[in-house]
């Protein structure tokens, strides 16, 4: 049995999710300890618990310690089963993180899986639905990983209640990833999404974007969506020949519309000022598919704590270890 210290590095839910995915794929029994030990509320929160339960469901695992607040989980995976699954998480916990946990495992099967999700879709501290659908899938596709996603309803923090579905094709032969150069910019698009909020919020955000970066009216889309509670997100998308980058900031009570817009623009400028292809948040997500596939190489911004931690956790399951190499200012290469 593999012991994994949940308090290492970034010390959060990422360790749990990576460990669960790797455990399922390699068939390794794991014991996770000190889960989220340094956090204000240590142990499994409901969204983490939902990940454990989802992993358990798709591979018929034997699990102990799966309850809210638990700081130790034993996970003994069985055979991964493709099929139709429904995953729910309350408290607007991110369903994207559940998807992230089960995706690498489900592509290792022989048939299609249909997943439906219920919970949060556009959360602050997790990739949003749009980020996964646009940025992540765009990179996974050339690797041979094919997923079709469909959003029925947005789920914002704190109510959640979002609904979406994913169709996952099996991909047993994952191709080597190679992203050295983004290629030409094909399109840029800002999408301002709001639900149950006064109109001026989106308008002020648009105004701010226009002032800071000179995108045309055509490149700015203002959309109103249906959701349980209220919600707002600014999403800046850059479509290149070889990849797509999605930079987002979620609006929240107490933060002005202008600040929300400016925050996403700051991140956009950082990305554009570097020669990196892959943004900070996508980098750590690509490591797992590379590890279970044929490896690869990509150039990215300065690796986050998430990436460093992911590197160590993955290394506990496989012999190889990712190489992080600094090429320039805020410009790194990650290779396996």
């Amino acid at each position, binding site marked *: 049995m593999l012991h994994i210290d949940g308090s290492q590095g970034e010390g959060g839910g990422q360790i749990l999710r990576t460990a669960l995915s790797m455990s399922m794929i390699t068939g390794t029994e794991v014991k996770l300890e000190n889960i989220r030990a340094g956090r204000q509320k240590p142990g499994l929160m409901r969204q983490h618990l939902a990940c454990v339960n989802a992993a358990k469901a798709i591979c018929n695992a034997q699990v102990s310690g799966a309850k*809210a607040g638990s700081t130790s989980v034993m996970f003994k995976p069985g055979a991964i089963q493709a099929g139709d699954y429904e995953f729910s998480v309350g408290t607007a916990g991110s369903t994207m993180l559940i998807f992230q946990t089960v995706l690498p495992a489900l592509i290792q099967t022989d048939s299609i899986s249909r997943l439906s999700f219920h919970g949060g879709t556009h959360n602050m501290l997790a990739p949003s639905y749009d980020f996964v659908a646009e940025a992540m899938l765009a990179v996974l596709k050339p690797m041979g990983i094919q997923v079709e996603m469909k959003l029925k309803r947005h789920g914002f923090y704190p109510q959640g209640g979002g609904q979406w579905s994913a169709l996952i094709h099996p991909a047993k032969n994952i191709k080597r990833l190679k992203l050295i150069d983004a290629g030409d910019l094909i399109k840029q698009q800002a999408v301002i999404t709001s639900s149950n909020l006064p109109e001026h919020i989106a308008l002020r955000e648009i105004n701010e974007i226009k002032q800071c970066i000179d995108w045309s009216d055509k490149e700015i889309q203002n959309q109103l969506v249906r959701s349980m509670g209220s919600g707002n997100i600014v999403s800046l998308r850059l479509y290149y020949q070889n990849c797509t980058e999605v930079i987002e900031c979620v609006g929240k009570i107490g933060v002005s519309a202008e600040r929300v817009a400016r925050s996403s623009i700051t991140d956009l400028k950082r990305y554009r000022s570097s020669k990196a292809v892959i943004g900070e948040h996508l980098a750590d997500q690509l490591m797992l598919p590379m590890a279970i596939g044929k490896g690869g190489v990509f150039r990215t911004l300065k690796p986050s704590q998430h990436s460093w931690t992911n590197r160590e956790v993955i290394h506990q399951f496989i012999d190889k270890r990712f190489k992080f190499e600094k090429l320039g200012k805020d410009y790194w290469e990650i290779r396996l």
Partner: protein
Amino acid sequence: MKTVAISLLGTTLDQRGKRKKRWEKWRPTISLCQQEDLLIDRLELLFQPQYQRIADVVTEDIRQISPETEVCQHHIEFDDPWDFESVYSQLHDFSRRYQFDRDKENYLIHITTGTHVAQICLYLLTEANYLPGQLIQTSPSNSINNQLGTYQIIDLDLSKYDQIASRFSREHDEGTSYLKGGINTNNKQFNKVIAQLEKVSINSSDPILLTGPTGAGKSQLAKRIYQLKQHRGQIQGKLVEVNCATLRGDNAMSALFGHKKGAFTGASTQRAGLLLEADNGILFLDEIGELGTDEQAMLLRAIEDKNFMPFGSDSSVSSNFQLIAGTNRNLFKDSINGKFREDLLARINLWTYRLPALKERMEDMEVNLDFELERFTQKAGALVSFNKNSRSQYLKFAHSPEAIWKANFRDLNASVTRMATLADGGRITQNVVKDEIERLKNDWSFSTQDKNPINITAHYLNDDIHVSLDLFEHIHLAGVIQVCRHAKSMAEAGRTLFNQSREQKKSQNDSHRLKQYLGKYHLEFNKIRDR
């Protein structure tokens, strides 16, 4: 384990905010299901039927925000949600009806919603274990951008809280120390008895039965229990103490239960009786085994119904007292041969504590000695103490097998009183101790408890002779010594001892014969008497 929450629908708080606006408001029952570190597997939602609409909105909202949670609706009819009786009985009914499965489910009782009366009722039902769970309260959080609020689980097991637990154990220590009269006893058995008795005294008003040899401190302890309860404000009435051995015949009935004027010859005035006197207090019946069977029957009824009939009266009176009974007899034996009513014994044999004899609590000898000295000092108003050697001399004897402490603490108390009285200038000298030891030895040598003839003869014979005798002779001699001790003269002793020969005129001079017999052992009648 599943987590199940039981919550009243908050007809005000859970209804805040119209339509979509409701999501901007903190709604306690929703918030309960929305905590990221608390997963409610099932919510039992209680509400009055007229609030069905609100309940449906809340149920649907919970289904959306917490898909893991199953919501079960329960109708509950309060005539008036501010009426304590109605609310309590309805919630009590719910708790009796509900199938709790404590092996598989943990229960949280949400006390944030409902009227204050309902919250009090939920608390009471939880505390009484009708709702076997922990209380949970939700509250809005301070920051404006968080309508989720926070929650707190309140465990009513107070021992789980460090600060309260230490406060508790302090009070508990105070309580036990109270019962021990401030004496820091070391005897395990005794301390165990006291520790439990402290809890029982505080939590129960059922009868307590104190057994143990005479002088073990039964009546002292009864007094302490009374004081402890009084100190904690649990009783208002008096402590009424009576030794049942002093109650006989008509007097017994009237003393206990009272009588009407003219109930019997000599009943010239009305008498209330001890039971009534002990109303709202404690009745301590010492030597309860000495109570007559009629009185036992009356007493049983008085305990069970809090009701009894005064002697000669045709209407009953009521008295609410706690009974503490004391006995040095084996009441079970007595109940088998009909001396003590079995039903009464069953009723009072609920909290039975046996107080160990002083001899069984030798580790407490020293602290008790100090306690007795202190007590004398307080009474006499002058300090009395041992010198070092006299103290160790006395303690050595006190621990020796010779010291049988026949009347337990009464012996110790008497012994200390004697020594302290004879102590010149407040110092108990070795001479005083030596005399006292002799005295105690002498007292106990005739105790009915020490029937070993070898021990009896040991007091009178010199050692050479004592060790040379057969048991046969010890038995003879011990018997003769006993008779001599109780006889007024040698002649009387002789008459008692040689009663048969005397009838048959075989012996003329009984005194002479006795003198000769004692002479064989170098003993003299007068010296036996004087020892």
